[in-house]
C-alpha cells in the first residue's frame, strides 16, 4: 500500500473549507491588484512627488545687488554676505554661562538678549542682524540649541560720509532708500532665483532638473563722480563750514564738456555705514533737494540776455547814482554808491541798481524765457529722488519791482545743482547740456540758449569779477585764468528776510580760455563774522578748482606766478 493511499490521510474535512480558503486568497489577491491599480493609476502624482523629494531639492539662488563705482572704477558701494542670528525662543534652553557668552559674542547687553529669548509666544526672533561671518562662526561654535543663522547681504560704503548724499543707502533688506541707491533701484536690485536639482547620497548635485526661476544679479552702476575730486571738495567744504561756523553748505563740480557731475557734497553729512545715523535733516542732499535765493550769482544771466538781445554792449554806461533805485514802495540799494558803471563793471562790482536797471529794459517774457532756458523752475532730471524745482513765477504775474529784484537773484529760488548747470552756459559757448550722475561716454548735443559771442563776453566780465577791483579776488588760482561770480543773500525766514542770516555762494569756471569745470559753492549761514560770498565761498572754490584741475591734468593757461594777496581795500563788497 502506498503512503498516499493510507486511510489515515483520507480527507475528513468538508469540501467547502478548501473552497473557502481559495476564495479568501482570491479576495486578498483582488485587493492587492486593486490597490496596485489605485496607486499606479489614480494616485500616482502624490507618490511620484514623494519619491522625487528623496533625491531632488529646490535651491535658492541669491541675486546680488549691483555695485556702484566711481568714474575710475573705484568701488563706492559693495554688498557682501553677512549672517543674521535668529532663534526659536521656545527651543532655547540657556544656562546663564551660555547667555553670558552669547551676549559677549554678539555684543548685546545681557538683559536685552534675555528679554528677546524670553518671548516664548513668538516662533521667530532676530538676535542680531548682519553680523560679520567671523562672529557668526563664533556663535555657531557655542552650539546652542534653537539658535540659527541665515545668510544676508550687507552694503558697505568705503567712502563713508564723503559721498553719503550722492550714494544714499539701503535698508536692512537691501532695498534702496536714498540717493543713487534709490534712483537706480530697478537696475541695481538683483532678483533671487531658484532651481531644482538631483542630489546624490553625498549631497553633491548631479543633475539639473529644471530652472524654476532664473536668478539675476543687479547691474553695476558707474557714476560720473571722481572720488579724488569728491574727497577734495568734501574736505574743503567741511573746512570752510567749520571755519565760518556755518550751519551747512554744498558744493557741485561739473564737467562742462559732458555735463557730468564730478563731485557733489553737502554738509552736514552722516556715515551711511551706521544705520542709526541715517535719520533727520543730515540725510537730505541739499544741493539737489533745497532751493534758495541765489543772490548776485544770477546777475550774469540778466546781463547775458541784455547783450544777446542787443540792448546793451559791455561798454554801455548805466547810471547808478545815487546808489539806490526806488520802484513803487521798494528801494534797491548798492553797498558802494557809484555814479555810473559800464555793463562790465556792473558784474565786476556786483551792482544791484545796475542789474535792476538793465533788467527793467527787458521784456518780462524774454527774461522768463532765459530763466526757463537755463533750467530754473524745472527739475534738473538727474534721476535723484526729491529734486528741487525751485521757484520762478510765471512772467504774467511779475511786477516791475519783482523783475528788477530777480535780476540780482531775489524773489527767485534755485538749487545749487541748477545754478551750477546754468553756469555751464558761459563755459560752453552759450549752450547747455543735461547734467548726469552716471558716466557719459559720448558728450550729448547742447541746447543753444544765447549766442557764442554773448557767452564769451559774459565770461570776460566774470573774469574781471575775480581780479583785484572785483568782488572775489580770493577765487583766483595760480596758473589758471578763472571766471566767476559771488552771491550773498539774506536767508528767508518766516516769510521775510532774516537780517543777520545769509547764504554765501560762489559759482565759477576755469580755465577761462577754454573752460573745463564749473564749480558752485554755497555756505549756509556763516556766523564767524564774514558773510560775503567773496570771503566765505570763493576760497573754497579756489582750493577745489586748483586741486581738480591738477587731478585732471588740465594745462594751465596763465603764467605760473604766485597770486598776490589783494589788499582788503581793493576787494569790492557786493550789495546784499
Amino acid at each position, binding site marked *: 500500500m502506498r503512503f498516499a493511499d493510507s486511510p489515515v490521510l483520507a480527507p475528513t474535512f468538508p469540501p467547502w473549507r478548501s473552497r473557502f480558503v481559495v476564495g479568501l486568497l482570491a479576495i486578498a489577491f483582488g485587493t492587492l491588484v486593486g490597490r496596485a491599480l489605485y496607486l499606479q493609476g489614480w494616485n500616482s502624482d502624490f507618490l511620484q512627488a514623494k519619491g522625487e523629494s528623496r533625491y531632488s531639492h529646490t535651491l535658492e539662488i541669491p541675486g*546680488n545687488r549691483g*555695485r556702484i563705482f566711481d*568714474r*575710475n572704477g*573705484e*568701488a*563706492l558701494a*559693495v*554688498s*557682501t*554676505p553677512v549672517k543674521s542670528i535668529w532663534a526659536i525662543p521656545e527651543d532655547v534652553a540657556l544656562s546663564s554661562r551660555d547667555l553670558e557668552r552669547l551676549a559677549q559674542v554678539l555684543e548685546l547687553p545681557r538683559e536685552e538678549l534675555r528679554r528677546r529669548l524670553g518671548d516664548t509666544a513668538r516662533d521667530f526672533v532676530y538676535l542680531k542682524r548682519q553680523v560679520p561671518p567671523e562672529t557668526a562662526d563664533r556663535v555657531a561654535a557655542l552650539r546652542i540649541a534653537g539658535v540659527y543663522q541665515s545668510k544676508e547681504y550687507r552694503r*558697505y560704503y*568705503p*567712502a563713508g560720509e*564723503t559721498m553719503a548724499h550722492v550714494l544714499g543707502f539701503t535698508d536692512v533688506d537691501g532695498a534702496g532708500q536714498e540717493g543713487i541707491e534709490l534712483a537706480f533701484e530697478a537696475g541695481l536690485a538683483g532678483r533671487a532665483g531658484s532651481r531644482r536639482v538631483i542630489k*546624490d547620497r553625498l549631497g*553633491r*548635485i*548631479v*543633475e*539639473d532638473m529644471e530652472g524654476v526661476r532664473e536668478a539675476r544679479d543687479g547691474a553695476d552702476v558707474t557714476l560720473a563722480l*571722481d*572720488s*579724488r575730486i569728491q*574727497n*577734495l571738495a568734501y*574736505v574743503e567744504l567741511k573746512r570752510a563750514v567749520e571755519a565760518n561756523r556755518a550751519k551747512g553748505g554744498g558744493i557741485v563740480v561739473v*564737467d562742462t564738456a559732458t555735463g557730468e557731475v*564730478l563731485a557733489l557734497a553737502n554738509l552736514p553729512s552722516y556715515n551711511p555705514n551706521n544705520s542709526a545715523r541715517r535719520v533727520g535733516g543730515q540725510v537730505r542732499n541739499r544741493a539737489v533737494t533745497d532751493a534758495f535765493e541765489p543772490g548776485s550769482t544770477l546777475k550774469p544771466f540778466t546781463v547775458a540776455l541784455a547783450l544777446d538781445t542787443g540792448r546793451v554792449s559791455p561798454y554801455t554806461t548805466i547810471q547808478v547814482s545815487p546808489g539806490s533805485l526806488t520802484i513803487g514802495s521798494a528801494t534797491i540799494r548798492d553797498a558802494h554808491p557809484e555814479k555810473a558803471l559800464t555793463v562790465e563793471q556792473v558784474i565786476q562790482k556786483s551792482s544791484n541798481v545796475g542789474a535792476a536797471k538793465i533788467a527793467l529794459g527787458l521784456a518780462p517774457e524774454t527774461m522768463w524765457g532765459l530763466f526757463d532756458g537755463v533750467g530754473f523752475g524745472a527739475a534738473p532730471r538727474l534721476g535723484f529722488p526729491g529734486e528741487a524745482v525751485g521757484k520762478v513765477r510765471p512772467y504774467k504775474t511779475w511786477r516791475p519791482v519783482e523783475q528788477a529784484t530777480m535780476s540780482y537773484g531775489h524773489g527767485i529760488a534755485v538749487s545749487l545743482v541748477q545754478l551750477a548747470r546754468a553756469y555751464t552756459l558761459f563755459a560752453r559757448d552759450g549752450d547747455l547740456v543735461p547734467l548726469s550722475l552716471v558716466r557719459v561716454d559720448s558728450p550729448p548735443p547742447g541746447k543753444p540758449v544765447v549766442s557764442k559771442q554773448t557767452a564769451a563776453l559774459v565770461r570776460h566780465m566774470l573774469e574781471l569779477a575775480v581780479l583785484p577791483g572785483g568782488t572775489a579776488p580770493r577765487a583766483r588760482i*595760480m*596758473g589758471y585764468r578763472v571766471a566767476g561770480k559771488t552771491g550773498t543773500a539774506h536767508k528767508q525766514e518766516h516769510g521775510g528776510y532774516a537780517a543777520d542770516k545769509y547764504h554765501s555762494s560762489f559759482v565759477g569756471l576755469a580755465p577761462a580760455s577754454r573752460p573745463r569745470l564749473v564749480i558752485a559753492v554755497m555756505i549756509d549761514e556763516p556766523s564767524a563774522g564774514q558773510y560775503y560770498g567773496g570771503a566765505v565761498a570763493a576760497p573754497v572754490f579756489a582750493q577745489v578748482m586748483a586741486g581738480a584741475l591738477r587731478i*585732471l*591734468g*588740465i*594745462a*594751465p593757461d596763465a603764467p*605760473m*606766478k*604766485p597770486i598776490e594777496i589783494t589788499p582788503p581795500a581793493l576787494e569790492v563788497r557786493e550789495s546784499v
Partner: protein
Amino acid sequence: MTRLALCLLGLLAACALGLVTSQHHARKLFAELEREQARAKTLEVEYGQLQLEQSTWAMHARVERLARERLRMRPPEPQRMQVIETPARPEVASR
C-alpha cells in the same frame, strides 16, 4: 533566427551598459561643474570684499594723511613747478 536574437540581446546589453556609464560620467562632470561654479561664486564674493578693502585702504583722505604725516610730503611750491607744453599730444582727458 536564434543567433540574430542572441546578437541583438548582446547589443542591447552593451547599449544599456553604455547608457549607464555615460550617465554616470555626465553626473560626475556635472558635479564638477557645480563645484567650480560654487567656487566662482565664492571668488566673486571675495573679489567684492577685496574691492571694498582696497577702497578703504586707498581712501584719498587716508593716503593724503599718510603722505603728509609719515612720508612728510607736501605739494610742490609754485616757483619750483614747470609746465611742459606738448602741443602735438591730444588733451589729457579724465578717464
